[in-house]
């Protein structure tokens, strides 16, 4: 793998950033500077094996197809809440997560658009569908929505909605790695929008001072809900923020799965070697609205279409595999078919799953007592209230 560094870690590059620091971030366009400077595997120097490269394809395809299935289920009103897409961002999610080492026990914290990252870490399509459908045998037993769930054994921590909060939490997860001398690395995703939160700032600063083995990936997809990047920050990029925290920076084309992998891998290697935090900016584009209901009226005309036409990560990667890596079209088709099969099985299983029982809602707020105080007004207090004597206990809290 080349030790090629993105402009962020190159002093000249950041110097430039400073000179134009008063200029807003340029609107992202497909094929702008970032893409031009990125890897397309053209130099053939990546250390990924053929199997690994096909695995990357598999996860990207699985991400896209699984979300397409979710769209169907959503239209059939089988998805209980909102539906969040990562269309066009599959490379960024998959490529970055692929840089972690699951056998070493690396852990990541995904966001709503990191379905691909979770699949790489071992999340199963059936779990995802059950979560969205609020099933009783979903990982959170119907308590939390969409991909808000985790599994420390497989290596991902469930997010909460409050943006930025996972950065301090992952600072603590990786602090534990450091304290125990474990050879593990953590990775936390934040959107361009979430970089504005106090939690992001405090968590990143804390991890930087403690030199935690943490990679902070800013997924710059151009928008936070309807808000374009230039209303989120006056800086010309997100990677320049690395300087202010005294951490390393990387910037890569998030629609190039290999470039994404490589930039993140450098950050992961640095963290594992004791080099502390890296801020990785992955530049990509959110082709769907914030959620399914968002009509994207705020997007300049043609922008989405241009990204779809010129910079779809699956299209781009398929071309690389077919045209340069000597992969046969039939191989990709076989993967596509395998993915469809897996999703069909998962859909059948998830659909057959039961909804949770109402009373299960009371279990598990505390380790001890294991059961939350109940709703007395749904239980047998009738006896007590029919007497005007002093009862031993008026009303009970045993639900």
């Amino acid at each position, binding site marked *: 793998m080349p030790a090629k560094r993105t402009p962020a870690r190159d002093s000249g590059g950041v110097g430039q950033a400073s000179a134009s620091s008063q200029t807003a971030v340029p609107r992202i366009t497909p094929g702008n500077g970032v893409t031009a400077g990125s890897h397309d595997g053209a130099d053939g120097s990546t250390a990924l094996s053929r199997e690994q490269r096909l695995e990357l394809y598999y996860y990207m395809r699985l991400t896209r197809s699984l979300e397409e299935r979710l769209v169907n289920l959503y239209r059939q009103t089988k998805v*209980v*809440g909102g539906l969040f897409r990562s269309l066009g961002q599959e490379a960024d999610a998959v490529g970055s997560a692929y840089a972690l080492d699951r056998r070493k026990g690396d852990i990541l914290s995904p966001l709503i658009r990191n379905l691909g990252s979770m699949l790489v870490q071992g999340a199963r399509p059936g779990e995802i569908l059950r979560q969205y459908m*609020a*099933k*009783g045998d979903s990982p*959170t037993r*119907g*308590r*939390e*929505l969409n991909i*808000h769930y985790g599994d420390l054994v497989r290596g991902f921590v469930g997010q*909460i*909605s*409050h*943006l*930025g909060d996972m950065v301090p939490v992952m600072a603590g997860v990786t602090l534990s790695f450091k304290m125990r001398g474990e050879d593990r690395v953590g990775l936390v995703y934040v959107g361009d*929008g*979430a970089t*504005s*939160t*106090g*939690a992001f700032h405090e968590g990143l600063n804390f991890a930087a001072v403690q030199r935690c083995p943490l990679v902070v990936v800013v997924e710059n997809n151009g928008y*936070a*809900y*309807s*808000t374009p990047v230039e*209303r*989120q*920050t006056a800086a010309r990029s997100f990677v320049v923020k690395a300087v202010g925290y005294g951490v390393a920076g990387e910037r890569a084309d998030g629609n190039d799965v290999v470039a994404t992998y490589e930039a993140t891998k450098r950050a992961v290697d640095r963290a594992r070697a004791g080099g502390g935090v890296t801020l990785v900016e992955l530049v990509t584009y959110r082709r769907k609205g914030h959620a399914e209901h968002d009509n994207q*009226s*705020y997007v300049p005309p043609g922008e989405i279409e241009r990204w779809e036409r010129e910079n779809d990560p699956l299209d781009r990667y398929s071309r690389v595999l077919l045209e340069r890596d000597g992969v046969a079209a039939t191989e990709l088709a076989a993967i596509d078919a395998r993915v469809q099969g897996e999703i069909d099985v998962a859909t059948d299983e998830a659909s057959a799953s039961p*909804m*949770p*029982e*109402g*009373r*299960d*809602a*009371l279990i598990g*707020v505390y380790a001890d007592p294991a059961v*939350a*105080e*109940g*709703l007395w*007004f*749904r239980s047998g*207090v*009738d006896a007590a*209230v*029919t007497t*005007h004597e002093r009862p031993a206990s*008026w*009303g009970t809290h045993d*639900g």
Partner: protein
Amino acid sequence: MAEVTYLEGIRQALFEEMERDPNVFCLGEDIGAYGGAFKVTEGLQQRFGEQRVIDTPISEIAIVGAAAGAAHMGLRPVCEMQFIDFISCAYDMLTNYVATARYRAMLPCPMVVRGPSGGYVRGGPFHSQNPEAAFLHTPGLKIVYPSTVADAKGLMKSAIRDDDCVLFFEHKYLYRRIKEELPAGDHVVPIGKARLAREGRDLSIITYAATVWKAIDAAEQLEREDGLSVEVLDLRTLLPMDDAAILATVRKTNRVLIVHEDTRTGGIAGEITSRINEQAFEWLDAPVLRVTAADVPLPYAPSLEDFVLPQAADIVRAARQLARY
């Protein structure tokens, strides 16, 4: 006049107040071109421009803090929390900076913090919260939580005109589910006054926000099936609390059920119970009871959410027990 929704009532209030007073402005995430996650501010930016309808970074601390600074200078900011659940990020700024400004520094801080609140919408633990109890405890803040279209509009107008900080909670379950004809003209509802939502003789239900409607459903069922005459008091303003209205209904029916959607322990019902104890104990013929959510984060699945949140059937059941006492 045409009927309008609860959401439209709030939107009208924002429009009218911005027309009336050039010092009023709005700030929040995605409230401009997009018109807000629920479209409460739709059309505002077209009408009043980017200077008075500001799309901010995702920064609840900054939104609230900047509003306070602007308010000191004589402006009247209206902050949107995209979901009220995110007000927790600004908890320090609200309780320590904003709420104390007048008292400790004689700094006026006229501002509104508003946002979609409440459950019954399958929003899960972080898009369904009822934050009133977290702030009831903070002298210096006012808290409003309307249940009708007229109140939503009229209280928003009062909140914007108020010289202190008003937390204005909008129930998102009601946004498009209730419609009313609105009084013409400058419809203003005073802060601090409860509303008798339904008259009755046998028993009082004290509540606010979405559960007002559950209480009314329950009251009708109780009238039909049990011949009970149930009074429903809609608090509307939670801070300052309308003690006079609470005492009046206690003295009238002598039996009180407090209903809130929020979790039980540490919820607002406790405060109401204390006030009744202190001021009308002898008027009670039965204990003050509460029907509330269970003490858990609000789960996502319909079966779980329905179980945790108070339903009309729960109110009916508790009211029957109370009536029989």
